[in-house]
Every structure is written in structure tokens, then in C-alpha cells.
């Protein structure tokens, strides 16, 4: 992009990891890179907890009878799985880990605009998460992650209030992160880095931040009302007191549909970076892809009613929501076509991140296209609340979101840690995750069309074979997820030292050393070209595969 540095060659140089190693320097750090790592460790922990609950669910569903655990325990298991994965892994994962680490680096800044707020957001997140984990481990939570009243307000015996308080508090972490990113993109861009020279990762995070800032307060208020109803007996959602249970669903999905875009938009940003880098082509239709992120963020706020086609919501309201839902599909289609076209006449290298990007394409396409089934009102009646919906949103949020996250972790791992990981094991992991994922969730589309309702502890016998396939696939998926924990950790100790720019990428983050110095750049870079300018990339910036730069 511009002003290349050659600092990467000095090995003894201090970096953000080594310049101070006291515990205090980590817990009180204002460095966005260290805060990103704090988030990384936290969300990995919550992913593990959520994953363990998923295993319990899949083991129970091996047999038609509810025989592995009681129905009460089962209900807690799928609820805990959903709450942990959504609120404490998927929502923070890409923005708070990769976004935190990369946003300042990508725009040539020393840090985020509000470093203290950034640290505060992590503490708030941890307080919220601790409450939720406490609720889940003591007395459990059995309302489903959707928390529909009147079950959650008047019937559930579980720790609803504490769990809801946890999610409520964690929401503020999300708001603070969003505000911070918006301020940073507006104020901290390097000289010459105009809006339309920004990497698409930055555009995607900017759009995501808008959703976080505008949507999260609504879910916070909703959960607050639910808490009041449960503890003090208010009747906002209770028909016996003149309230309306469907009102909760409106408020809940007003946030929770856009929340899907908090999980998927940043992952799309990751995919844009990976596909461009490993094709050595400027992303096809750059401005279309950038604007489609904003379109998704805005339209995403207008479609929530598609979750309520089978409720008492009026048919005419439903029609409006159905139409808008189809509209929000278009920007995603634009992205998918542009990503694919980027490979055309490129120079394609199938490194591990590119394998994850390929996995993302396959899974997100299926996830997005099956969304059309559910936007189609007459079709949704049959599929609503079945395993079809479960399969659909796992394809979007795990197939899309987590594949993007994994791709991003593998893409920027050399930058974050200064180490290269094993090519073989990482490619194997990408393959296992892709295969295991399809094996797990594809049968669930069939189960859903057969009519198997979600959140069922036991089910009719004729559906066992599909459930066994799903559980078998989940075991493969689990291996795919455990492998990176091993080879990435191993790379920290035995991995080859990473050069500044191991993939021959163009972003500013690749122009500083790996890992970067505490203040990112020794001198503020000046940008003179558009993003993804591979022509002016110096040949020295693209070492032969596997070769270390030092």
C-alpha cells in the first residue's frame, strides 16, 4: 500500500507481547492488541462451555427415547448452549477479538480512539459472562435462548433473572466496542486513507458497529422489562394482566435478528480480506461489497417480524416483513458473487485461510439460501420451530460466522503471535470442520422438513437414523475444533518465526513487524493508493512458501 517498513528484520525488537510481561500490565492494559487477546481467551472459554453443552444435546438425541438425561436437564443443556454461544461467543468473537486487534492496524493508527473504554468493555463483558455462567452452572436456565414469556416470566423455575442480568450487562460491552470502532474509523485514519480506500474488513466492522450501537439498547430494555415482570410481577407480557406475550417477541427479535448480522458481517469482512489476498486481486466490485454491508445493517433492522408468521401477528404485517426479508437477501447475494469473481484471472493460493474461506462460501450459501424458505410465508408455516430452522441458523452463524472467525484467526495468527502454525494440521482441521459441519447439520434440514420440532428431548423412532448421522457428524466437527487448540498452542512454542507479511497481503497491518510493536507503527504510514493494490506490492514482501523472513 505505501511506505513499507523493514523493521520486521530486527529480531530483538520489543513487541507488544514482550515489552512488559507482568500480570498487571495485562489486566490494566490499554493496548487494543492485548485487549483483543484477553477477549480471545475469554471467548475461547465460553465456546468450550457452549460446545460441551452441545455435546450433551447430541448424545441425548442419539436415541429416540429421552434416556441419557432428564428432560429438565436437557432443556438446560440446549438453553445453556444457545446462551453461551450467541451472547458470549458469536457476538463478541470477530469484532472484539479480530476487530479489536486489527482495526487500528488496518487504518494506520496507534490504538482505538478510546483505549480506556476498550478495557472497560472487556471487564463489563466478563462480569456479564460470569453472571450467566453462574446461572447456567447453579440451577441452570431452561427457557431457550429466546426467553419467551410467559414461560420465562411466570413458569420457569430456573435462574432466569440472573442469566438475563448477565446478558443485559454484557450488552454494554458490545455497545462500547461499537462506539469505539465508529469513533476510530472517523477520527484515526492515516493520512491519505480515504473512506473508499479502507479495507473491506473495516467497512464490515463499521456497519456491524452501527448495529451494535443501535440494536443492543433495545434488547437491554426488553430484558430489563422481563426482569421486572419476573421479580416484581409487572404484566407487560402477561395476558392475565392485560399484557401481550407477542410484544416480547417483537422487541426481542428487533435486536436478535440484527444480532445475526453482528455475527456474520464481520466474518464477511474477514472473508473479503482472505479472498483478495489469496487471489492477489482487488476485491471484485469493491464499492458494491462495501455498500452491501451498510445495506445489510440497515435493512436488517426491518425484518424481525419474519420470526412471527405463525403467531397472532396480522397477515398484512407478515407480508411486509416477508418482502423486506427477501430484500435483505440481495446484498448477501452480491457479496457471494463478487467474492467468487475475485478469483477470476487471479493468482490463487490455497493456504489454510483460503480453505476456511472456501468452507465459508459453501456453508454460508446454503445458510443464506435456506433463509429464503423461511422468508416465504406459506413455506415457513411448515418449517417454523422445526429442525429446519436449527439447521438454517447453524449454517449461517457457525458455517458463516465461525468459519469466518477461524479463517481470520489463521490468516492473522502470524501477525498476532509472530509464529507460523503447521500447514498440514491446519488444512486437516479446515477439512474436518467443513465435512463434520455438513454431516451434522445437513440431516437436520431433512428432519425439519419431516416435521421434527426443535428443543425436543425425545422424538418418534423413524427419525433416529438422521439423528445418529447428525451426532456422528458432530463428533467429527468436535475433532476439527479441538485440533487448532493443539497446533496453534504448539506454534507458540515451536512454530517458525513469522515474517512481517507472510501471505503477500496489502493491508497496513502487514507493513509492521509480526508481532507489532506496542504502538503498532514506528512512523505513521501514509496511504497513496486504493486498497488491494497488488501491483505495487514489493516482491520482497512475498517470501517463498514456508520460508522464514529472518
Amino acid at each position, binding site marked *: 500500500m505505501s511506505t513499507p517498513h523493514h523493521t520486521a528484520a530486527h529480531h530483538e525488537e520489543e513487541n507488544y507481547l514482550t515489552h512488559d510481561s507482568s500480570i498487571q500490565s495485562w489486566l490494566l492494559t490499554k493496548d487494543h492488541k492485548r485487549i483483543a487477546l484477553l477477549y480471545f481467551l475469554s471467548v475461547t472459554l465460553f465456546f468450550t462451555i457452549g460446545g460441551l453443552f452441545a455435546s450433551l444435546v447430541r448424545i441425548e438425541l442419539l436415541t429416540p427415547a429421552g434416556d441419557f438425561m432428564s428432560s429438565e436437564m436437557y432443556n438446560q443443556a440446549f438453553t445453556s448452549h444457545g446462551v453461551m454461544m450467541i451472547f458470549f461467543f458469536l457476538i463478541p468473537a470477530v469484532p472484539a477479538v479480530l476487530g479489536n486487534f486489527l482495526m487500528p492496524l488496518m487504518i494506520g493508527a496507534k490504538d482505538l480512539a478510546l483505549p480506556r473504554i476498550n478495557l472497560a468493555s472487556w471487564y463489563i463483558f466478563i462480569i456479564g459472562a460470569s453472571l450467566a455462567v453462574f446461572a447456567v452452572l447453579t440451577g441452570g436456565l431452561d427457557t431457550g435462548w429466546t426467553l419467551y414469556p410467559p414461560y420465562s416470566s411466570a*413458569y420457569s423455575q430456573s435462574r432466569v433473572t440472573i442469566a438475563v442480568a448477565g446478558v443485559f450487562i454484557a450488552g454494554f460491552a458490545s455497545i462500547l466496542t461499537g462506539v469505539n470502532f465508529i469513533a476510530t474509523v472517523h477520527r484515526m485514519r492515516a493520512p491519505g486513507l480515504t473512506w473508499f480506500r479502507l479495507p473491506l474488513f473495516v467497512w464490515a466492522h463499521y456497519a456491524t458497529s452501527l448495529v451494535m450501537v443501535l440494536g443492543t439498547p433495545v434488547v437491554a430494555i426488553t430484558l430489563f422489562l422481563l426482569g421486572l415482570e419476573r421479580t416484581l410481577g409487572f404484566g407487560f407480557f402477561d395476558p392475565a394482566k392485560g399484557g401481550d*406475550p407477542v410484544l416480547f417477541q417483537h422487541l426481542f427479535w428487533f435486536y436478535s435478528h440484527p444480532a445475526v448480522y453482528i455475527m456474520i458481517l464481520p466474518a464477511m469482512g474477514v472473508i473479503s480480506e482472505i479472498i483478495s489476498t489469496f487471489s492477489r486481486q482487488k476485491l471484485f466490485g469493491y464499492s458494491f461489497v462495501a455498500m452491501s454491508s451498510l445495506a445489510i445493517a440497515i435493512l436488517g433492522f426491518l425484518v424481525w417480524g419474519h420470526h412471527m408468521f405463525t403467531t397472532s401477528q396480522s397477515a398484512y404485517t407478515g407480508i411486509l416483513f416477508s418482502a423486506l426479508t427477501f430484500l435483505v437477501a440481495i446484498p448477501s447475494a452480491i457479496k457471494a458473487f463478487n467474492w467468487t469473481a475475485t478469483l477470476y484471472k487471479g493468482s490463487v493460493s490455497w493456504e489454510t485461510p483460503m480453505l476456511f474461506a472456501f468452507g465459508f462460501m459453501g456453508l454460508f450459501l446454503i445458510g443464506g439460501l435456506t433463509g429464503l424458505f423461511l422468508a416465504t410465508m406459506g413455506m415457513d408455516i411448515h418449517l417454523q420451530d422445526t429442525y429446519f430452522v436449527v439447521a438454517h441458523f447453524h449454517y449461517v452463524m457457525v458455517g458463516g460466522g465461525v468459519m469466518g472467525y477461524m479463517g481470520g484467526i489463521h490468516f492473522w495468527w502470524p501477525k498476532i503471535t509472530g509464529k507460523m502454525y503447521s500447514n498440514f494440521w491446519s488444512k486437516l482441521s479446515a477439512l474436518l470442520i467443513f465435512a463434520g459441519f455438513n454431516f451434522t447439520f445437513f440431516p437436520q434440514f431433512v428432519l425439519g422438513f419431516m416435521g421434527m420440532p426443535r428443543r425436543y428431548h425425545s422424538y418418534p423412532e423413524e427419525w433416529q437414523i438422521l439423528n445418529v448421522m447428525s451426532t456422528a457428524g458432530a463428533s467429527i466437527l468436535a475433532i476439527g475444533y479441538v485440533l487448532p487448540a493443539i497446533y496453534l498452542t504448539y506454534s507458540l512454542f515451536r512454530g517458525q518465526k513469522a515474517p512481517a507479511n507472510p501471505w503477500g497481503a496489502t493491508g497496513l497491518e502487514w507493513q509492521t513487524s509480526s508481532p507489532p510493536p506496542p504502538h503498532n507503527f514506528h512512523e505513521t504510514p501514509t496511504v497513496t493508493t486504493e486498497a488491494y493494490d497488488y501491483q505495487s506490492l514489493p516482491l520482497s514482501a512475498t517470501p517463498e512458501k514456508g520460508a522464514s523472513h529472518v
Partner: protein
Amino acid sequence: MGSSFPPLLPPQASTVAVEVDALYALLVSITAFFTLLVVGLFLYFGLKYARKSESERPIQVHPPAWLEIAWSVVPLLICLVLFVWGVQLYFKIYTPPKDAITIHVVGKRWMWKVQHMSGAREINELHVPVGVPVRLLITSEDVIHAVSIPAFRIKRDAIPGTMTTTWFNATKVGEYHLFCAEYCGANHSKMGGTVYVMEKDAYQRWLAGPNAGQPPAVQGARLFEEMNCISCHRNGSNQRGPVLEGLYGKTVALKGGGTTTADDAYIRESITNPTAKIVDGFEPLMPVYLSQLSEEQVNALLAYVRDTLGKAERPKDAPAAGTTPLGSPTTSASPKASESKGR
């Protein structure tokens, strides 16, 4: 129930099932086509333009504008087709025909309580005749549930405080799954059982069998009397509420403007939450009965107002107490005023 193994299609046992499956087939084709197209191209380009040397610097490709427009407009057109078909099918599934017979369904953790208009009752089972449109009027006594009959491709939420509707016309005699699809707590997956589609005469025999009981409309008439509803809902000097004879299905003018149709949901609401919609010309005097009546008793009153009073001739000299209904002059109506205590 399921016959193929491993099963891929649920039984097609209602008139709408065929159309739902046709739409499903279209959606599956669209999904398969675009997934294979994009993934195929990704792989094809990825292999064809695979990097040959590390110093490769490919020529920058500049996308033509028509391409961006094409791949925005084509999906939009496909979506338009899906949208229109989906809306049309939605109305078909949720709009019962006029000649449908009525069955009341009440969800309660963890059972479906079913009232047939002949008086037969059952729990977690549903007996219906083949080839006859059947309308389900659905509500819940506690949390939200959802009636789901995959073989008919129908589903509708059972929401406390609200009455929802769906319908089907079963096409094949047989036994099918009946589920609760909206999570409702500990025994959610046990809430349900079997739908029995029977020949018409077998259904008539079943109605008269051991499950038989007093018809809801008769129970409703008794309740109507016991609760002294008639003291207000009658024609004459003491009238404080709309006359209910001939009311069902008519258009009603509301106090403060607007109209509504006196359908099941409206009449149910007027019994359980009388001040929600006041008929023009009346005062909100009727007490709230919800606390005294079970959902099944409300259904019985509703059946009486719908099936007995609804078919009764409206008294000739019954000016609907100052109402100026939109439609015929005989459509006053409603449940509002009754006993003289206000709320």
C-alpha cells in the same frame, strides 16, 4: 406413519400439502443451483488460476457494471416469485373455507385439549373426518404452545389471551403426528400424540362413542343463563349490551370509530377482555370473566354465541340500541355490556 427408510418426505395428507411440497421443491432447486454454481465457479477459478510462482502479479480485472446489475436483479426477480407464491399460500393455509367444521383446541402444559362441537372431547389426540374442511380455533391456558401437524403442513401458535386459527382438509385416512412446536417446558416433547383421519361414518361413530359429551353450545347456553348474561344482552328497556342473536360474522361498528368483524377471535376477546373493543352505543359495563371461566368454558360460550345465537333470527323490534352499524341494520352486537357493574 413414516414408511420410507430413511425418511425424506413426511406423509402428504392434506389438500395444501401438495402445493407446499411443490414450493419446497422449487426452493430446493434454487438452493442447489446457486450453491453448486458459486461453489463450482470458486473451485474452477481457484484451480484454473492457481498460483504458479510467488512473484506472480496478475493483471487487475475491472468488473463491468452490467455484471453487478445482473447479479442483483436476477436474485431479486427470483425472490419476487417466491414472495408472491409464499403470500398466496399463506392465505390459503390460514383462511378456512366457509363450510369448515369447527374444533376447539386448548393448549395446557403438557396436553392438547380438544372439544368437538358434537360434545366429544379428547386429549393429545385429534379425530377428524377425511375430505371435510376442519377449522381449528386455538388458544392456550398457560404458556405459548404451537399446534403442529406435519402431514398436513400446518402449524399455528397457541397464545394465552388470544385465539388463533388454522384449517386443513385431510385427504388420506391414517394416523399422523400431532406435536407441540413452541417450547413450553419440561415435557414439551411429550405434548402431543396422534391425529386420526377417519372415514366420515367412522368419524360419526367415534363422535358418538365413549368420548361423547354435552355439546359446547349446550354448555354455553347453560353458562349464559347461570351467569345471567341475558339480563343485559336482550332487547328491551333493560338492554345494556348488544343483542347477540344473528350477530356472528357480521360487521360491528365500534365506539370511537372503526368497525370489526364479529368472528371467533373478536367474540372470545369480548368475553375475556370486554373493554378491548366497545360496540358503538354501549358503555363499558361488562365485568371481566376471565378469572372465573376456564378456556374451555369460554369456548362453550363462544360456541353458543356462534352456533346457536348466531343462527337465530334477530328479534324484529330490536333496534341495536343506538348503534349505527355499517352493514345491515341487524348487526349490532357484541359482548360488551352485561351486568351493571362497570370495571
